[in-house]
């Protein structure tokens, strides 16, 4: 696990990338700039900032809870996702406002910088993959098909049974 200071620095770097990616992608910031000028485009960027700060708060809160609980059976992300869920459940004070703010951050767009880092790191695994051989790769792909189809079939059957 990273030290708190390292994590804080990196979270800020991530936040900047998310903000810019979100602005270029889901908010179409550059198109708006061309059509309506820089002010309108900057307003879009500003719109996303409260949501990003809320997410940063949820991440910080989740990590803090992880550090405070002596039992380390769950990873920090489990607390982060749970905290994010709790503060936006209808009925939680301010849940609607928080939901409205974070909705300005497109969640599929959030994955773009994450996978950029994953892609930059992936080269170090290629050697291992060559060493393991193609057969394991084929098995791996069937494994992913198996878990997807297996879960989908059961989910579909149960959903249909519940509808009756």
């Amino acid at each position, binding site marked *: 696990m*990273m030290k708190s200071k*390292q994590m804080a620095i990196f*979270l800020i770097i*991530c936040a900047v*990338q*998310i903000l*810019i*990616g979100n602005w*270029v*992608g889901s908010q179409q910031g*550059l198109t708006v700039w061309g059509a309506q000028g820089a002010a309108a485009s900057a307003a879009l960027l500003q719109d996303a900032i409260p949501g990003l700060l809320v*997410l940063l708060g949820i991440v910080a809160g*989740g990590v803090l809870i992880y550090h405070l609980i002596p039992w380390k059976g769950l990873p920090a*992300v*489990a607390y*982060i*996702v749970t905290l*994010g*869920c*709790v503060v*936006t*459940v209808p009925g939680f004070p301010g*849940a609607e406002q928080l939901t409205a703010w974070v909705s300005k951050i497109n*969640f*599929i767009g959030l*994955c*773009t*910088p*994450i*996978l*950029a*880092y*994953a*892609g*930059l*790191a992936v*080269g*170090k*695994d290629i050697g*291992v993959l060559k060493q*393991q051989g193609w*057969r*394991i790769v084929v*098995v*791996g*792909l*069937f*494994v*992913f098909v*198996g*878990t*997807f*189809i*297996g*879960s*989908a079939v059961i*989910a579909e059957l*149960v*959903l249909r049974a*519940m509808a009756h």
Partner: protein
Amino acid sequence: MNIVDRALRNWKLHILALILTVIAELIGPYSFDVGPAKLVVLPLLYSFALGALCGLPALKLLSKDDMIETSSLVGVTFFFLMARYGTLVGPNFWKVVHSAPALILQEFGNIGTVFFGIPIAVMLGLRREAVGAAFSNARESNIAIVGEKYGMDSPEGIGVMGVYVTGTVFGALFCSFLASFVASTMPFFSPQALAMACGTGSAGMMSASLAPLVKMWPDMADELSALAAASNMCSGLDGVYMCVFLSLPISEWLVRLCGVKEAPSVPTGAKN
């Protein structure tokens, strides 16, 4: 200076990640038809593929050290995404609770890996490697299980590491195409069932397979994302128990049925 400090100061990495993100978002989502299937490609796949291309030795852009430093950061990049997933589940909380029976039972579908994977593995000539490779989708917690039960230097350890690496290299691309393919060619499945199937305990693969579903059913985006995130959370919680008590014993039984008679490996430390 430890590896994370070096990674944080390595501005080349952060600038590259930013450039790739901007390029990927500028290209934007695309969908195209391949025979009867509709494939959806999204910025998250471009940024991954472009990042992987940056690692080509011929480009001399990234050194081995750069890549190892980057991988020390990858875990934390998911924090914002997990926070966002939480905020998708919250507003849909009661809808998710209402689907609880399906969500819980579909977890058993993860055992599907065994019935698909073991016979294929044995057919391809793997022996004890088959158990490690096919008992789970080989994410971090599954590696820990194999390490403890068989040892990492065993054939089982080679199997689980092979599928783990397959997942990091091809997982996002493959799962994304798999989900678009199934969603566009098999009308038997409702979008909700497919969304639940996306959650297999890996946030990266879940997002990659959920993305095309959200693109195909934009009106249901929030509900589908909440179901996928909830299913992923379930897999994270029950995954270890599911593997230890169900999928690993079933794998051991099935691999013997397929004709692999060698005894399971024992971790080196545990031998007498």
